[in-house]
């Protein structure tokens, strides 16, 4: 009973495991909280003067176009709606709460509160995108200035801020590559995009969506992208190369310039997925390696919050030769006023409505303006220091390895393998992650397919202290030890989470899956309307 709480803090200056328990509210589905007649918000009433003039306005709708009965939405008063969602929020582990180094490739760094506050200004939120340009000079200037910053960081000539997040930016790059070859009359001939297996899956998926065939290169024995393999696949059919560097293993491709050269020599373009740019800000630039296109994720490298999966922003940079193809409009400045330029006949057109996720762009701008060139370089250097420190500590855990590039350092993340531990104990990487959840941290394995066996991808960014990194490693070391001494405890995890082990079978069974409450009621509970 009288447990010594200090035990859960530090021993000899080293952090101990926390007595974490995720919030567990047993919160009902919101429909179960509904009570007939309750109202959560009122809408402005129609004034008598309007009513008098228009009468029963719904009468203008043909009968078949009128809704027959009100939508069966839940009926709750305002405090109950608020409480329900605040409880749900407590059952969610934001980066603000945890040592979020476990979501590798996601760059879960600190999202400064000041930037959120600035973006919440009505001077941003209440702007309509079609307002006259003279009424939006402030926000246009922010966008223009941010583009200048991106140009300096990447070396590229122009940027579009339009794509809604990273994959949309990757798709934009694929669309630009397509437009380039079309303009040169090689659209039908050049139908292959080359990528690597350790580049984000969207490089393959988005290029495929744009109509290309995909050639995926596997690493050489040391885990580096294989130059000989590249030389073997380039041809007059090559439309382009779309890759990440450093790759999701945290390994930087030292022959990157040569990769680009080989593809250029074959007549293809090169697009740089800079999702993993956090360790190389101010260190090396896309343009210097010869790339024609690149993109950054503002919700990763540039600190804007991830919002449970968006809104983010994916900004696309192009060299002079390709600027003509960027989405419309671009933000221009004539020395006196900022304006939107739609008069770009070779543009691929629109990628999304209007100009991009402007609040996100503003937050990213504010982030750079709070750091400057020296600060950005420090971001990169400390992110890389933290990663190599974490690597050093992780490798002290028996059963952990960091496949490839043995003895070398990594840039900003590492894809580890628990293969040793799995062989010894039968406990798998995913189970280790679920047990780690019991201590209040995230953990992520890898994209598919799993080239690294029993993978685990950690990215510590610049935001965490040495103590926090030690704590994260201590959690995994503890779980690894449990896998040996009490494997059942790990296999049945999580134990301290909001909920217990989910039965995933219904999610792949068309007769039982339910993506809405109404489908659940009908299919599983046998209630509701057929």
């Amino acid at each position, binding site marked *: 009973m009288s447990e010594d709480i200090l035990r859960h803090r530090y021993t000899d200056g080293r952090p101990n495991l926390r007595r974490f328990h995720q919030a567990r509210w047993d919160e009902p589905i919101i429909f179960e909280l509904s009570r007939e007649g309750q109202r959560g918000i009122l809408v402005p009433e129609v004034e008598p003067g309007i009513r008098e003039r228009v009468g029963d306005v719904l009468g203008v709708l043909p009968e078949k176009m009128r809704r027959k009965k009100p939508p069966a939405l839940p009926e709750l008063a305002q405090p109950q709606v608020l409480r329900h969602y605040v409880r749900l929020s407590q059952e969610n582990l934001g980066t603000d709460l945890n040592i979020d180094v476990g979501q590798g490739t996601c760059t879960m760094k600190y999202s400064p509160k000041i930037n959120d506050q600035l973006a919440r200004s009505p001077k941003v939120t209440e702007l309509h995108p079609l307002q006259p340009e003279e009424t939006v000079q402030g926000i246009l200037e922010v966008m223009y200035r941010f583009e200048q910053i991106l140009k300096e960081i990447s070396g590229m000539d122009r940027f579009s801020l339009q794509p809604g997040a990273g994959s949309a930016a990757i798709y934009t790059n694929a669309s630009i590559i397509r437009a380039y070859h079309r303009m040169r009359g090689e659209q039908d001939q050049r139908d292959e995009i080359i990528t690597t297996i350790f580049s984000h899956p969207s490089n393959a998926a988005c290029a495929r969506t744009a109509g290309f065939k995909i050639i995926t290169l596997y690493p050489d024995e040391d885990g580096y992208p294989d130059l000989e393999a590249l030389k073997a696949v380039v041809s007059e059919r090559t439309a382009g190369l779309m890759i990440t560097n450093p790759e999701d293993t945290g390994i930087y491709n030292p022959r990157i310039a040569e990769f680009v050269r080989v593809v250029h020599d074959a007549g293809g373009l090169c697009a740089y997925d800079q999702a993993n740019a956090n360790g190389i800000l101010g260190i090396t630039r896309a343009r210097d390696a010869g790339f024609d296109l690149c993109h950054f994720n503002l919700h990763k490298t540039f600190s804007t919050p991830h919002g*449970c999966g968006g809104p983010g922003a994916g900004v696309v940079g192009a060299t002079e030769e390709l600027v003509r193809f960027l989405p419309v409009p671009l933000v221009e400045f004539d020395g006196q006023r900022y304006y939107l330029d739609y008069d770009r006949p070779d543009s691929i057109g629109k990628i999304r409505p209007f100009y991009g996720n402007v609040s996100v762009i503003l937050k990213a701008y504010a982030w750079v*303006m709070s750091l400057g060139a020296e600060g950005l370089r420090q971001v990169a250097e400390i992110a890389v220091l933290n990663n190599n420190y974490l690597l050093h500590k992780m490798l002290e855990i028996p059963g952990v390895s960091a496949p490839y590039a043995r003895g070398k350092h990594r840039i900003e993340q590492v894809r580890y393998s628990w293969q040793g531990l799995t062989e010894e104990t039968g406990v798998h990487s995913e189970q280790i992650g679920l047990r780690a959840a019991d201590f209040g941290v995230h953990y992520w394995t890898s994209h598919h397919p799993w080239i690294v066996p029993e993978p685990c991808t950690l990215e510590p960014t610049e935001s965490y202290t040495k103590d926090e990194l030690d704590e994260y490693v201590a959690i995994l070391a503890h779980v690894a030890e449990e896998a040996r001494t009490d494997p059942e405890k790990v296999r049945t995890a999580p134990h301290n989470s909001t909920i217990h082990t989910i039965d995933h079978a219904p999610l792949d069974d068309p007769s039982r899956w339910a993506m809405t409450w109404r489908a659940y009621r009908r299919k599983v509970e046998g209630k509701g309307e057929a």
Partner: protein
Amino acid sequence: MTRDGPMIHPYIPNSVPAIKEQMLQEIGVNDIEEFYEDIPTELRLTGLMNLPPPFLSEIELRRHVEGLLARNRTADEVLSFLGAGCYQHQVPAVCDEINQRGEFLTAYAGEPYDDHGRFQALFEYTSMMGELLNMDVVNVPTYDGFQAAATSLRMASRLTGRPEALVCGTIGRDKLSKIRDYCQRAMEIRLVPYDPKTGLMDLKSLRAMISDRTAAVYFENPSYLGFVESQGDEIAALAHEHGAVCVVSVDPISLGVIAPPADYGADIVCGDIQPLGIHMQYGGGHGGFIATRDEERYVMEYPSRLFGIAPTRVPGEYGFGDVAYERTSFAQREKGKEWVGTAAALWGITAGVYLALMGPQGMVEIGEGIMARTYYAMARLAEIQGVRVPLFHAPHFQEFVVNLDQTGKTVAEINRALLARGIFGGKDLSREFPELGQSALYCVSEVHQQRDLDRLAEALEEVVR
């Protein structure tokens, strides 16, 4: 401001030299430079980037950013009648309260155990959208309504194996641009002419164009130009007769009073959730939804994540997870359906909060209230000599075309004069739809009071005189 020694930034804890030194020592390297050993010297940047000097304190940063933003004049500070895909509505305070919670705002892609709240909140969002749309399957939001429409068409193309979509001729040209780019290698996009009197799809043309090549017939309700496409049932029937999929884009705010497209035969319904409790943000508040019936062949064509409810090993406990994950690019790379990635989840949660607050009665009242104001505005503007409104003879919801040809002035001239009177006039359509002459698209919502609409009428009368 000057500081001695190296910069120790509040966002970068391990920049403290002693800590840095200690970490380097533990790793066994002398310098951070060693970590970059794989980057060839010729690719290394020498010296610092040429960036503006930073504002190291919050107050300096705030002054700088707010100084820039002060040059904006917001839709709140004037009287705005702009719509055309982005809408000014009442945003309940609770919507902002929830989407500002750090637990949601800063979360990302955790497991359903760490991030149960995100899964449940998004499941509830899709569930409430399902009620509004009268559909059983709704996706976790994609980027925006443009993407939702483009993906819906490609879903139809995969479902039918056919190479063509017939799209209503009144679609907004930006959205059409997106669809054309996105569908370029998958299907041809052909516009179906519209009746110049009513704006409605010309069914004779549709009959002539539709064939066994047609994957989808696409239209919008309300249309981009504000009228209600009342032939939905006939269009859907025609599509089905020819084995095509009927795709309808809808403004969810209208669905308290206007029939959901599923009721008149739509197979895939899509649209944008920005009107549901999300600020305009200069066009940065969009999220896209796609909805279908719960049929396996439809479900398997979604590229998006689909969150389903599932039991846990504790009886009665609700768990959540991805439905049919193997269809996605996360699982299958280029063999998945299109792609899935970070999009607009936080706006999905926000729209859920909005629908929970509004309830059935709120959605009916807002729909009716918008229509009443729309009809009042149209009636008031119709009193002005030389102003033709609405241009199309059809029922309208929220938006309507005002033709100004007979005033002898251009929309641009009139809007400049309105701006001088503190009014954002409707969107100039003269470049987008040259066949409509000098026309503007006006938008009215529940934020407008009678005196706002009267003020618009008076100002416009003055301006066109």
